[in-house]
C-alpha cells in the first residue's frame, strides 16, 4: 500500500483544459473519492493516475516513485472500470488470475490467491463460468476480484456502481467499504454520486471544471463548505439557497416578499446593501430555533420516521425544503413555519465564496 502524490497536474484534450493544475496527496490507507458533476475532469484525473492518459505537465508519485511517464503496465496499480471490462473469452477464474499469471507467479500461489478472492467476494460457485453468463453485480465482483488478487499499491475505481440497480448499489457500497477496512488499501474512487462519496470516503476531493473546488473529510465538507458549489453538491437533500440583501443587521430576502432574517453577531463583513446568498440545509429547518421563515406547503414526502416538506414562501419562485421529524400532521396547503437557529446559517458572496 502506498501514498499517492499529485503535483500541478494539467491535461488538455485538443486545446481544451480538462485537468487544471491539480495538486493533492492521498495518504497511505486512505479512501479518497473524486466527486463532481459530469465533465468536471474526475475520470480524466483517475486515468492520468492509471497511465491511460499522459499528462501535459505536472508529476504523479506513487509510493514516492515518479510514475508520470511510466506506461500503465509498469505502475503496479489495479483499476475497476465502470463497464467492468472483463475478458469475455476467459472464465471467471482466468479473469481473476490474469494479472498474477502476467506477473509470472507460480501456479499454486495463483490458485490460492484466486480461491481467497473468490471466498471474500462470494464468487466460488461461478469460477468456471464466462462473464457473459453473470449478472451485473456478479460481474462487478469479478472486476473487484481481479483488482484485489494483485495486492497493488493503489486501487482505482471508476464509477464502479453506476451500472447497478439501486438495491445492489447500496449492497456493493457496503462491500467496498468492508474491503477497504479489511485490506487497508489505498483507494482512489471516482463517482458523481455524493452519497457514495459521503459514505465511503475518508477524504473527498470536489472537482469542478478541472480544478479542485475543495477537499477534506466528508463531514468537513458538509459542515464547512468553502463555496456555494460545494455546499450545493454535498448533502442530501440539497441545501436551500435564498437570495438576500444586507440591510442594517438584517438580511432581506428579495424572493420571499421581503421576509427578514437576523444576521448573526457580530454581523457580516459586508457593505450595507450588498447581495448575499443564504444557505440553509433542509436538516436544520424544523420546529425549534430562534428565527423562522413562513410558507405554504406544496408537497410533503413522508418517509415514516421523518418527512420532507416542500414549502413556498409567499412571493417566492423557489421551494424551501425542510426535513422534519415525524411530520405526519403536515399536508399540502397548510401554512408552514420553518424554524432554525441563527448559527446554522451559511453565507456566500456573489462570486459563490463563503463569507465566514
Amino acid at each position: 500500500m502506498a501514498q499517492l502524490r499529485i503535483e500541478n497536474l494539467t491535461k488538455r484534450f485538443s486545446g481544451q483544459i480538462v485537468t487544471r493544475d491539480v495538486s493533492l496527496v492521498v495518504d497511505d490507507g486512505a479512501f479518497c473519492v473524486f466527486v463532481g458533476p459530469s465533465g468536471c475532469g474526475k475520470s480524466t484525473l483517475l486515468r492520468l493516475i492509471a497511465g491511460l492518459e499522459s499528462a501535459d505537465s505536472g508529476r504523479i508519485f506513487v509510493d514516492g516513485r515518479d510514475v508520470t511517464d511510466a506506461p500503465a503496465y509498469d505502475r503496479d496499480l489495479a483499476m475497476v472500470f465502470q463497464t467492468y471490462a472483463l475478458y469475455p473469452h476467459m472464465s471467471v477464474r482466468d479473469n481473476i488470475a490474469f494479472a498474477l499469471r502476467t506477473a509470472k507467479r507460480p501456479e499454486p500461489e495463483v490458485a490460492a490467491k484466486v480461491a481467497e478472492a473468490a471466498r471474500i467476494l462470494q464468487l466460488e460457485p461461478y469460477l468456471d463460468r464466462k462473464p457473459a453468463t453473470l449478472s451485473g453485480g456478479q460481474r462487478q465482483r469479478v472486476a473487484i476480484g481481479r483488482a484485489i488478487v494483485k495486492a497493488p499499491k493503489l486501487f482505482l475505481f471508476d464509477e464502479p456502481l453506476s451500472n447497478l440497480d439501486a438495491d445492489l448499489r447500496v449492497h456493493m457500497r457496503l462491500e467496498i467499504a468492508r474491503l477497504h477496512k479489511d485490506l487497508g488499501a489505498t483507494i482512489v474512487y471516482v463517482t458523481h454520486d455524493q452519497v457514495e462519496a459521503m459514505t465511503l470516503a475518508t477524504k473527498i476531493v470536489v472537482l469542478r471544471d478541472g480544478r479542485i473546488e475543495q477537499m477534506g473529510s466528508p463531514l468537513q465538507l458538509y459542515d464547512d463548505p468553502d463555496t456555494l458549489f460545494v455546499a450545493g453538491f454535498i448533502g442530501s437533500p440539497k441545501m436551500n439557497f435564498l437570495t438576500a440583501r444586507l440591510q442594517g443587521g438584517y438580511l432581506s430576502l428579495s424572493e420571499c416578499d421581503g421576509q427578514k432574517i437576523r444576521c448573526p453577531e457580530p454581523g457580516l463583513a459586508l457593505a450595507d446593501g450588498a447581495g448575499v446568498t443564504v444557505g440553509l440545509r433542509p436538516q436544520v429547518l424544523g420546529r425549534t430555533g430562534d428565527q423562522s421563515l413562513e410558507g405554504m406547503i406544496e408537497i410533503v414526502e413522508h418517509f415514516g420516521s421523518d418527512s420532507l416538506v416542500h414549502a413556498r414562501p409567499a412571493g417566492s419562485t423557489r421551494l424551501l425544503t425542510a426535513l422534519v421529524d415525524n411530520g405526519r400532521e403536515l399536508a399540502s396547503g397548510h401554512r408552514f413555519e420553518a424554524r432554525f437557529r441563527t448559527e446554522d446559517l451559511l453565507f456566500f458572496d456573489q462570486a459563490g465564496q463563503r463569507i465566514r
Partner: protein
Amino acid sequence: MTPGRSVENALLAGPLVLFLLAVLGFPTVLSLVYGFSETGFQTLTAPEFSGLKNFRDVTADPTFWQAAWFSLRFGAITALLQCGLGLALAVYLAPLARAHGWTVAILIIPMIVAPAMMGLMYRLVLHEFAGPVPHYLYSWFGWSPSFLGPANVFKTVVVAETLQWTPFAFLLFLTAYQSIPQDLREAAAVDGTRPWRLFWKIELPLMMPTVFVALFIRFIDGFRVFDNIYTLVGAGPGGSTTSISIYIYETFLRRGEIGKALAAAILLFATAFVLLSVAQRLLRGRAP
C-alpha cells in the same frame, strides 16, 4: 407454426425459390444430366446415359489428381500467407487507420483489380525476355530467376495471389481488431500486460472467429483459382499450374470431353459443399 402461417411463408418465399430454381436449378440439372452421360459437342442435344463412366474416367486420370493436389496446396498456402500477413498489417496499421481512414482505401486497391488483369500484368512484368523485372535483375545483378519457369512458377503464382488478396484479409482483421472494446486493452494494461502479451492473450483470442472465417474464404477462393493463373501461365509448364478449375476448362473446351469435365465439376462442388458444412458446424460450435 400454424398452418395459416406456413401457407403465408410459402407464398412469400415462393418467388425467391422459383427464381433460384430458374437461375441455379436449370444449369445444375443440366450439369447432372451431362455428367452422367456420354456427351460431346456433337451429341449435346441427345446425351446418352452412361452411368458412372465419366466419374471413373475422371478419377482414373492422373492429371485430375495432379490438379486437385495443386488446388489444395495453392488454396492452403495462399490462405495461410494472406491471413498471416493481413493480421500483422491490421494490428500494425490500426493506429494509422484510426487516425487517417483514407489510408485503408489505398491498401485495398489490389483487391479491386480484376484477377485476369492481374495475371496479364504479371505476365508482362515477369516475361523472361521482355519483362522489366528480369531485365533489371540481369542488368544490376547479372542474374534473374526464371519466374515463370517450371522451378519457380508455383511460387510466382502463390506470391501473385497473396499480393492481390492479402488486403481482403487485412480489411476483415482491421474491422475485428477495431471492434475490440478499448477498455479491455486498458484493463489489461493496468493489470500489467505488455503489448505482446496483450496481443496473444486478449486481442488474438477475441479475433479468432474472424481468423477462421478469413482462412476459410481465402482457402475456397484459392482452391477454385482460375483467371489470374490462366492469364499468367495457362496450364503452366507440363501442366504444373493446372488447378481444378483450369482442368475442368481444358477438358471441356480443349478436349471436348464435356461429360468428364462436368463429372469433375460435380466432384469439386461436392467437396466444397462438404468442407463448407463442416466449417460452418465448427464455427457454430465455437460461437459463445
